[in-house]
């Protein structure tokens, strides 16, 4: 009897884990991916859509085309996980039995916890949001643009910084930069979560006349007055407001009472098991791990999850741990980019921004569909943390 593995979520983590499990275990496993839309979205593309550099067409693909033939796909929404019974309840009434479960359900955006956010702010964390923002920027004639963060944690820590740097270039090209003020409202006392990256980008922001307000945690928005207010009691006036919306874990996690107050799954940082559950694994944005919520995190976690489940199926000692590896690009807006590569033991040493890293990000954007979900990039690639 093949072991039954249910993978909740068809994003980069779930897709890669499913493919690696099927590839590694063959007939010893039956893998089913459960995804509510059946569409796999390349989220790093939203930034480019917002800035008019790409349309949405290359951003989403049918999940079925990314999965191996021996992996089943159920286009369904999981609504409740029953760990003891080993089942997952589905929205339309069915139920899926599993011997091993991978929860790769990602994060969802919640707009209503910050008053005025939905009416007053733009965002580029969804395709629709990115398209709306693109239109707003197209007709923007000049004024004060504030870019802030309305909740922690959020996906892709570099994104707001990339956005202001690329926005600077975008407005210059349109001849609207001199009539505009760009400010990054950071929840911390620096531009970015990672200190070495902040040290790199803050001088660049300063040179380009991009303002930085620190310790500005967005609390509410007053759309009629054009004012955004912080938890710290400060106000900022805006003509165009772009906010990273608050994030939570998916509803199925809340409904199953498995998450912490933010809806994030308590996960072992090395084994990736859901705490207290040997046969349930959590990965990607859905976990409570205090590391970057990024596609690369899920990408590097997937082989560990697949390997550990394989060891459980075969009754052998587990062979791998997740070492906290993350790799994020950071565009600096002038045709250059840098890369943040780190893990639990090593903070990043970002190289000086270069055209080579910008090319690398674009090659990655282009090749993503042909390589990542199917596992065609070997994870054993050399670290090279400090190289230029």
């Amino acid at each position, binding site marked *: 009897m093949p072991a039954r593995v249910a993978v909740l979520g068809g994003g980069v983590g779930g897709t890669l884990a499913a493919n690696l499990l099927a590839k590694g275990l063959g007939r010893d496993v039956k893998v089913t991916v459960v995804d509510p839309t059946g569409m796999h979205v390349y989220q790093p593309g939203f930034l480019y859509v917002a800035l008019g550099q790409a349309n949405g067409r290359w951003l989403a693909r049918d999940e079925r085309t990314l999965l191996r033939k021996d992996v089943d796909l159920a286009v369904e929404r999981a609504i409740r996980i029953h760990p003891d019974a080993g089942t997952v309840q589905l929205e339309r009434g069915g139920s899926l039995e599993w011997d091993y479960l991978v929860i790769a359900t990602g994060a969802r955006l919640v707009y209503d916890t910050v008053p005025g956010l939905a009416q007053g702010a733009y965002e580029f964390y969804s395709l629709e949001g990115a398209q709306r923002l693109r239109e707003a920027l197209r007709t923007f004639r000049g004024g004060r643009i504030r870019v802030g963060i309305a909740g922690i944690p959020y996906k892709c820590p570099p994104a707001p910084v990339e956005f202001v740097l690329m926005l600077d270039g975008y407005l210059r090209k349109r001849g609207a930069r001199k009539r505009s003020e760009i400010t990054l409202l950071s929840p911390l006392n620096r531009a970015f979560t990672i200190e070495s990256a902040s040290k790199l980008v803050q001088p660049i922001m300063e040179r380009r006349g991009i303002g930085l307000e620190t310790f500005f945690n967005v609390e509410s928005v007053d759309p009629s007055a054009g004012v955004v207010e912080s938890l710290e009691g400060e106000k900022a006036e805006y003509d165009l407001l772009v906010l990273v919306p608050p994030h939570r874990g998916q509803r199925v996690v809340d409904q199953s009472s498995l998450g912490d107050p933010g809806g994030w799954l308590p996960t072992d940082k090395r084994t990736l098991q859901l705490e207290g559950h040997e046969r349930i694994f959590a990965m990607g944005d859905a976990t409570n791990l205090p590391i970057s919520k990024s596609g690369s995190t899920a990408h590097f976690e997937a082989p560990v999850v697949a390997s550990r489940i394989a060891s459980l199926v075969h009754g052998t000692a587990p062979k791998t741990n997740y070492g906290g590896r993350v790799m994020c690009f950071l565009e600096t807006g002038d045709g250059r980019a840098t890369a943040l590569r780190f893990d639990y033991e090593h903070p990043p040493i970002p190289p000086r921004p270069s055209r*080579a890293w910008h*090319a690398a990000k674009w090659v990655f954007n*282009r090749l993503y569909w042909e390589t990542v979900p199917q596992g065609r990039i*070997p994870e054993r*690639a050399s670290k090279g943390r400090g190289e230029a």
Partner: protein
Amino acid sequence: MSTTTAKRLDLKGLSCPLPIAKTAQAIRELRSGDLVEALATDPGSVPDFAAWCRATGNELVEQSEDGGDYRFLVRKK
């Protein structure tokens, strides 16, 4: 059709995806039919070069490996 290599790139020690990125940058400067030889040590470059050639229509003329050193010969379309 050119048989001489217009550009040789030593990309050893660079990690994924820099080898393919630098090759893509270099190829932009060349003429159609020109050959680029790239040397890399990152195992990720194998699927990267294959996928990139497939996606762009550039020809992966040759690919070989010798003790952890990879050699790619690409012809610009």
